[in-house]
């Protein structure tokens, strides 16, 4: 059984947010009215966060694309009273929108704050509904939503593979964010396969996971920035 994981190379990330928009169009993520957006209520299944360290001139700003970390030991699923969120055998922390009762225990339990509550009925002015992706169900007001690693793409790829009586090939299933990345800073694949690109990258000395000390065991792995070449010239 595969164990799906993602690697994000922070050295290559340009903070362009193509991943953010790719995810939103793929997953029918509702957008907020201007007044709500200004209150910070927009929903992003993957969000670019800026961390400012220090003050000018000794400062550094780091940009970090932040999707659901798809923890092997996810704190969110333990608090769900209705089993609306659980972990699949191949490691995807899924969200069953229709089963969610909107208690928001999971949004509180998630240390990465990547779960979003639908405070409003999604408002898609006509004819913007035409661009909705029929592979992803719409979420009504009152439920929690988050990154599913484009689980629908896995289902589709798997169905094709079964119909063609062959195993799923590497690269056949890729989430929208990874596919869109202009600097090719995102990688996706099976962490169980020691020869996959993500496995190799996850063993890099640059690899780290967010808030590892909590024991959540995220399957989104970041690669830290690299020291520049030629900096020994003095």
């Amino acid at each position, binding site marked *: 059984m595969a164990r799906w994981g993602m690697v994000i190379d922070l050295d290559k990330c340009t903070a362009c947010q193509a991943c953010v928009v790719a995810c939103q169009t793929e997953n029918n993520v509702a957008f907020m009215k201007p007044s709500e957006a200004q209150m910070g209520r927009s929903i992003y299944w993957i969000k670019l966060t800026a961390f400012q360290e220090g*003050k000018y001139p000794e400062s550094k700003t780091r940009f970090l694309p932040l999707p659901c970390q798809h923890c092997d030991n996810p704190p969110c699923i333990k608090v769900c009273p*209705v089993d609306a969120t659980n972990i699949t055998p191949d490691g995807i922390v899924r969200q069953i929108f229709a089963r969610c009762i909107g208690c928001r225990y999971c949004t509180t339990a998630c240390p990465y704050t990547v779960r979003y509550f639908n405070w409003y009925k999604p408002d898609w002015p006509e004819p913007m509904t035409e661009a909705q992706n029929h592979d992803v169900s719409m979420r009504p007001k009152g439920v929690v939503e988050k990154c599913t690693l484009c689980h629908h793409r896995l289902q589709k790829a798997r169905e094709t593979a079964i119909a063609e009586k062959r195993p799923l090939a590497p690269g056949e299933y890729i989430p929208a964010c990874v596919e869109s990345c*202009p*600097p090719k800073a995102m990688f996706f694949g099976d962490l169980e396969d020691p020869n996959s690109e993500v496995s190799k990258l996850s063993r890099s000395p640059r690899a780290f996971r967010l808030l590892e000390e909590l024991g959540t065991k995220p399957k989104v792995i970041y690669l830290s920035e*690299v020291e520049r070449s030629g900096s020994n010239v003095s």
Partner: protein
Amino acid sequence: MKLDRRDFLFLGGGAVGGAAMGRISLKGIGLLNEALASEPLSDPGEEKFASSICRSCSGGCGLRVRTVGGKVVKVDGNPLYPVNRGGVCPRAQALPQWLYHPDRILSPQRRDKAADKWQTASWDNSLHTLAGAMQKIPAADRKNRLVVVSGRGPGVAQRLLSRLLTAYGTDTVYTLPTGLESAHQALGFMAGSAKDGGATRMAYNLENSRCVLNFGCDLLEGWGTPSHTHWLFGRWRDSSRSGRRTTLIHFGPRFSVTAARADEWVSLKTGAWAAAALGLAYVLISEDLYNKEFVENCTSGFEDWTDSGGQRHIGFKTLVREEYRLSRVAELTGIPSETLVRVAREFVNSPGGVAIGPQQSPSQPGSLSDALAVHSLNALAGNVGARGGVALLPDNGWRLPEDPEQIKTSGSLEEILRAVAQRPDVLILDEASWLLDMMNSEQRESLSRIPLVVTSASMADSTTAVANLVLPDCTPLESWSEGQAPESYPFELLSVSEPVLEPRGESRPWGETLLALARSLDPAVAARLPWKDFSEALKAAAVPLATRQDGYVFGSEVDEQWERLLERSGWWNPDWKSGDEFWKGIRDKGGWWNPLSWPAEPQRTFPTPSGRFEFYPQRLAALSPDKASAGRERDRSVLPRHVELALVGDAREFPLLLDPYEPLSFYGSGARAIPYLQQICSPYGAGRGWLSWVEISGEDARRLGIRNDDTIWVESAKGKIRRRAIVIDGAMPGVVGGPLGGPPTTGLWATVEPPLADILAPNTDPVLGIRSSAVTRVKLYKA
């Protein structure tokens, strides 16, 4: 019984009470909730993939479009397209929201005055109105009485426009500044224009650059072709590729995303680009680090020299050694001497160092003297026309058969504003909402005195607010599209794509509108544009290209490597045998390109009067406004030099400097009404959108008592505007970042706010006559 979620939760509340009796659990509610959820949508139809070309900016990236049941649901990068190779920026990702936007204009609209209500009109009537107004202008006045401003990238549609205007009797098309104007012209003066006098474009071979000194260009926001530049950035930092990582050193006062993501950010005083470049030149010269072989054999004006009249002139070397000592440069720029020494050494440490800039943003293309200074660094490193460097390439873009080169294109904002201020009889705005961004409220107001303002806007925007006739264009997905090598891209490239779907409503591709307008004007004009439709014009432009003896139809990256390998051994295997085969090839694969069009050997001779790269550009000396002065003073006015930025207002009253820039979401304007782009418009701003902001440093914010998200006044000698404050701790004190663009001013989500242009006091370059800088003195206080 029909239950909605609210009723259901209410029932659930009762059920929890009931749970005490041990009958119903929360889990049971969840399952019941799931059972009652709406049914999955019915069969949406067949899934298909098509390719297209983006037109959200002039870069023109290749797109792969997913349609389901004839509706566009996703846009991604086309992996076969050489410019972006699969990735694509958020602007293209948001195309479905543009296509299906509620503010789309789906039929021609007319009104007598900009204040009146719109009336729907037929295409015939609308074209008749425009053609009538154009014909009413006497032939002798047509040069000034019809003004056309277009933000469309170069291509067949632009060629049709030029042809139509030439036949009609106008001689200028005003275009969106690319931002490369100053740098391009400076390189033209120093390294000469094309030998045959044809048009050139300036390009960088950044894929092979190993150290990039970036003088203020927003490389990761909208510079060049965004998706290509982002792809390059990934390549620079790809540890799996052989060779070393490319170092990016960013010089600039504003803490841009590029500054944050560079290997080193060297903050410098506003406007001190040339001083910084010449300080680096000082280190290279005094430490003997420059490329002596290139400088001695291929340049002129480096050493002191004597002209044909026996007059002595100072050389670049003398000027730099005498006037740009590190102590003085440190004072002018605020950069410590040690930093300049370290960066200069790193720049020439290995081949492939390139200096780009200054700024190169459409709103601030930089001044000529700054651009000359930046290019002189490239000459000192010996990479003008070399691998990893900068070069002027022939501009082999789309051409129609027997195309006259009579039309002048001007990307000078000042010229556009002058032409518009003369109150022409007809003003045509084609993808020109950027122009409105650059106009202050007074200039916008003056547009209402023009009798006929026509816009091609596909969606309600700032141009529809001032227009009285709309000839609605459609998105690139609904029309035949063409692309060509964008400015700054190193290879020759031409591409075409078929429409992915029919135009929505009665919107019509601009190319078709131009052909129809030619037919309504008069037979002489129509005869010059004889094509039945736009695709026929495209084919007419493409077929003659089959006689080319170079290049390939698009293929994968593996094909690219193979073609390069073959050609290096002297082989070229054409992908076509006839014009029709060529047309079919580029239709199927998306286009033609020549991955070997960057000079294979470093350039040794230059088409300048001296035949060399000129530190003292003789063509510029002939143009120089400072003709009266003589001797050393005159030499100084021609050689690269630092010029103090002229700023309006008193530094004590307005102690901060506002530096306008264009964020990726709004680069080149447009796209303002697209919700997904509004929600990502500032990487620093926690994704709020729909409201313009300014970026201020943590230190200034603390001193002024301003906190993140506060509403503040930004006041200059020209006026004051309200903006939201974003505080950035890492930013340099004294500098305020001011994004152009902002919320849409018309349509469903309109927000009325005064434009940034209301408070800007722009500078014009004295030689080029183009806007060089719009940095303005301001003060900030809480509203």
